[in-house]
């Protein structure tokens, strides 16, 4: 298991003899090239990076310690803006050991006192047709498990549009991740035009508590789901054999 902290520990055991000027120059170069992404507290390349609304980058453990233990009024260490933990944006890079399947992700070890970094706020998938969309926040932000989180960014997303029918699919770890948008649906059943289905059906239950107030009955929902599944499947075949 590739622990992100191991590398750090290794590099931190730099000879602390201050008179010694033979600092590891390789590390220095690496440091200067990444300096735009260094944590503003530990000055190292940010790990479990989070960014505040004021745009300042930190390691989550570093910022957590400051906010919970030492700051007087939850101010940003760089610019003193108010920092609210639930408004932090986690950054999920590519190819990082951290971005493996979040279900298997161990707690951020070495910092057993630090909880998980806050999950990202995932807006609904963009609607290509409507300029302003009025979707409710409807993503599966279930307990500590961020569905489109780290590994979602690693899966290539494909989107195709046929007439007034938009279809998008994510391939990768979750082959069942389909996104559908059907336009021109009757409004009467509570689905506005362009209502997004950004979830795999298997996870739909988890998201139900976040459904908009105008949610339809389960029966209707299931029927619609099956219909959309079927439509999606046809389009999928269409793409596949075209």
């Amino acid at each position, binding site marked *: 298991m590739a622990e992100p902290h191991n590398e750090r520990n290794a590099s931190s055991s730099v000879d*602390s003899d201050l008179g010694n000027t033979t600092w590891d120059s390789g590390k220095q170069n690496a440091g200067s090239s990444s300096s735009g992404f260094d944590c503003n507290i530990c000055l190292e390349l940010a790990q479990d990076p989070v960014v505040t609304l004021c745009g300042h980058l930190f390691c989550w453990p570093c910022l957590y310690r400051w906010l919970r233990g030492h700051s007087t009024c939850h101010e940003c260490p760089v610019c003193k803006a108010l920092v609210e933990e639930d408004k932090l944006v986690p950054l999920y890079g590519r190819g990082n050991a951290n971005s493996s399947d979040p279900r298997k992700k161990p707690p951020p070890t070495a910092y057993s006192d630090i909880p998980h970094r806050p999950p990202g706020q995932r807006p609904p998938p963009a609607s290509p047709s409507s300029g302003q969309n009025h979707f409710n926040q409807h993503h599966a932000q279930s307990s500590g498990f961020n569905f489109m989180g780290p590994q979602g960014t690693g899966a290539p997303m494909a989107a195709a549009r046929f007439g007034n029918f938009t279809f998008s699919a994510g391939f990768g770890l979750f082959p069942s991740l389909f996104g559908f948008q059907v336009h021109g649906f009757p409004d009467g059943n509570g689905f506005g035009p362009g209502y997004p289905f950004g979830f795999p059906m298997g996870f739909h239950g988890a998201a139900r508590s976040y459904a908009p107030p105008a949610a339809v009955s389960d029966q209707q929902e299931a029927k619609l789901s099956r219909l959309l599944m079927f439509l999606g499947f046809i389009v999928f075949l269409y793409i596949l054999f075209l």
Partner: protein
Amino acid sequence: MSSSSPKGLSRIAANRLHKELKEWQMNPPAGFKHKVSDNLQRWIVEVNGAPNTLYENETYYLQVDFPENYPMEAPQVIFTHNPPLHPHIYSNGHICLDILYDSWSPAMTVSSICISILSMLSSSTEKARPVDNDRYVRNCRNGKSPKETRWWFHDDKV
């Protein structure tokens, strides 16, 4: 290796100080020299008064002591030997500067502290001790750290 790192510093603090020292060596703040020593937890920094200020051609020494959980907590920064005559610097070397106490932030560094101190010196218009110097210094006689003082900060621009 790890045995040479000072006992009083956490691993995080030692890492960060290594990093700061490295950056200082590559890009030292103008007017300052870090005096090389084996002690990562106490830095002695030579300060040279900026040209065209009251402290031109004068040399002072700052002693910077880092707490175990630096940078979450501010270092203790005092002038040693003969502290400069300045309305915010007491004769025992203590400095009345908000960033060293209430306004500390872990994004600050020794380098940024030094720059603030030099700018405080440079903007001074008179060489004088703080008005409450004698009373304050008497209160600190038993070796009290300036970090234990409840400071209130003057809002003037000196």
